[in-house]
């Protein structure tokens, strides 16, 4: 075949939501009619979402970026010799040198946006399956020790040490054990799991397989939110291809060990992201919270010892095995080791995925990476860590991104989402929504949450309407206390946190409206 220049047009959900499919189609059509020889590769997204659709062209050993590209730019790009890396108003230079990317430490996301997501050859050519090959030569105890020493903590929200969880499953005797990957990614402002599944699905399968080798589990499920139809399709296709290539199934990679994976589609209940609720759902039931103990690691899916881990936790394991615990642990600060996959979302000029070592101040993410608000107005509040977490006030923006530092100001890192609001935000309305969301999503098992959230909405509405403001503000505090201390799980137990943060830091918005 003649030497065709490779042109990359991302196919991830966000790139497509901004017209990437139309750009790819226009490129194909225009190049064909001009007789320009190009090969269009649908790669994943690098996560520079403010520049999507970001088109790249391979010139020599380098990839040059152009963006954001609209369908209507395709003609002028080809006029400007896109395949030769020609100059154009949308030209951004070498992709890897873009400060936004160069300033990151992409470990978990090393391949994301670089490769063709479903190509196993591409995956291998970019260090894929090296962690698994290493793991295949290790004992379960050695794998668990490596993950423990890396300092990796669960990226789904609770930040529990992954190695310790795995050790419990390893040490629990059972004929059948499971790996249950939590891909419910319900927090607003988060999309890191989606990006891994859409843009580098094999790294998740590799991480799950290593978890299986480490614990003796031979079956894995990926529980994916129904709101992610593309991720579901890609993961299913990746599993089929991996099976066909002998990378999943019996005696995979000639390791003498078996591991299978199946995708299960959720059905739009936020509570099913909570691990015991997710297990109920995987068993085909309503997503009601389970009492603990027993821990899922001891008695989880179908009563068997089960590792429940977030997508990012599992997708980080291959590089830890490949490069060693120390390599990973060297990133980070304090007890927050390794890298955090920050998702810049909401009212932010340069939104997208930033993977960096823990410990950098929040302000650096908001202003250096993020470039401030999208509207150009002052940033007034940031909801970090999902809908059950506090709104962070500008006076706290110098807080380092570190689990303990955030906890110390009553905030949360959670799954790493940062939702930015400018100064037009109505924080009273945000407080009301926090309670409304809890009311919509409550599983109904316990009273403080089921009844408390509905009451919370009413009380906040009364305050905003000027009914007995002082008494109702006091009532709201009490109600929050009751929910925090009396709820069975973190949905009811944490939904008051955003409300309390508004009471504490934005009291001027939670009072009678003129």
């Amino acid at each position, binding site marked *: 075949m003649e030497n065709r220049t490779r042109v990359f047009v991302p196919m991830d959900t966000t790139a497509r939501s901004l017209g990437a499919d139309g750009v790819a189609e226009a490129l194909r059509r225009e190049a064909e009619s001009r007789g320009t020889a190009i090969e269009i590769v649908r790669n994943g997204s690098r996560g520079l979402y403010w520049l999507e659709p970001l088109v790249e062209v391979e010139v020599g050993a380098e990839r040059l970026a152009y963006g954001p590209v609209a369908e209507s730019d395709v003609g002028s790009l080809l006029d400007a010799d896109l395949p030769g890396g020609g100059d154009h108003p949308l030209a951004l230079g070498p992709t890897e040198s873009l400060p936004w990317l160069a300033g990151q430490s992409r470990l978990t996301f090393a391949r994301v946006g670089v490769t063709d997501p479903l190509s196993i050859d591409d995956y291998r050519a970019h260090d894929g399956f090296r962690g698994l090959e290493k793991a295949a030569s290790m004992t379960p105890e050695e794998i668990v020790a490596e993950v423990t020493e890396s300092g990796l903590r669960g990226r789904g929200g609770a930040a529990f040490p992954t190695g310790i969880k795995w050790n419990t499953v390893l040490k629990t005797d059972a004929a059948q054990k499971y790996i249950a990957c939590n891909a419910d990614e319900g927090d607003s402002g988060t*999309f890191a799991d989606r990006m891994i599944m859409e843009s580098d699905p094999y790294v998740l399968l590799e991480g799950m397989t290593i978890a299986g080798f480490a614990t003796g589990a031979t079956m894995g499920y990926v529980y994916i939110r129904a709101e992610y139809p593309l991720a579901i399709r890609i993961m299913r296709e990746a599993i089929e291809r991996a099976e066909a290539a002998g990378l999943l199934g019996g005696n995979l990679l000639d390791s003498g060990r078996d591991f299978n994976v199946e995708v299960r589609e959720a*059905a*739009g209940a936020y509570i099913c992201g909570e691990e015991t609720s997710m297990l109920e759902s995987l068993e*085909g039931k309503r997503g009601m919270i389970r009492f603990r103990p027993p821990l899922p690691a001891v008695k989880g899916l179908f009563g068997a010892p089960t590792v429940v881990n977030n997508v990012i936790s599992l997708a980080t394991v291959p590089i830890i095995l490949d490069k060693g615990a120390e390599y990973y642990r060297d990133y980070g600060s304090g007890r927050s080791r390794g890298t955090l996959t920050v998702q810049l979302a909401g009212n932010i000029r340069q939104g997208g995925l930033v993977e960096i070592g823990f410990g950098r101040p929040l302000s650096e993410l908001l202003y250096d990476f993020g470039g401030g608000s999208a509207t150009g107005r002052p940033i007034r509040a940031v909801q970090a860590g999902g809908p059950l977490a506090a709104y962070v006030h500008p006076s706290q923006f110098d807080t380092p991104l570190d689990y303990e530092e955030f906890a110390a100001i009553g905030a949360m890192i959670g799954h790493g989402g940062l*939702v930015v609001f400018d100064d037009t935000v109505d924080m009273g309305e945000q407080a009301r929504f926090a309670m409304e969301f809890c009311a919509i999503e409550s599983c109904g098992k316990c009273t403080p949450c089921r009844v408390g959230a509905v009451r919370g909405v009413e009380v906040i509405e009364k305050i905003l309407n000027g009914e007995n403001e002082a008494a109702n503000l006091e009532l709201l505090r009490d109600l929050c206390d009751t929910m925090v201390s009396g709820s069975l799980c973190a949905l009811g137990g944490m939904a008051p946190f955003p409300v309390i943060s508004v009471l504490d830091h934005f009291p001027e918005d939670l009072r009678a409206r003129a």
Partner: protein
Amino acid sequence: MTEPDRQTRQTIRRLAEAGAAQAGALLPILHAIQDELGYVPDAAVPIVAEVLNLSRAEVHGVVSFYHLFRTDPPGKQTLYVCRAEACQSMGSRELERHARDKLGIGYHETTADGRFSLEPIYCLGNCACSPAVMIDEDVYGRVTPERLDELLD
């Protein structure tokens, strides 16, 4: 509501039987039914219950627990408007109002001509390019009211 015909019942039975062998079969079966019929008709409850050897109450409980299972036929297309925080920060409340006014319906309703159903959704993972909507399975970002009009026309 009209009773599903014989053929629909047969479809439901076929899908239930095809999925029955897997562990935790109920959700995958309900998805299969909704994928094929567009919704999970009430008549599916006893059939699925019988095939899986569950009580009707159990099956009904699951169908009603999950927001994304619907029990009435949807319009030709479904517009999902994201109501979650990141989209709120970029004007989704206005977009929601616009969607309702434009279609003349509220959430969980279908236009009289049967063209659109309107559903709320809580995050599509498109939060760096808010506000977001989804039409059937296609997600759109930075959707202004004008853009929504184009998408719906």
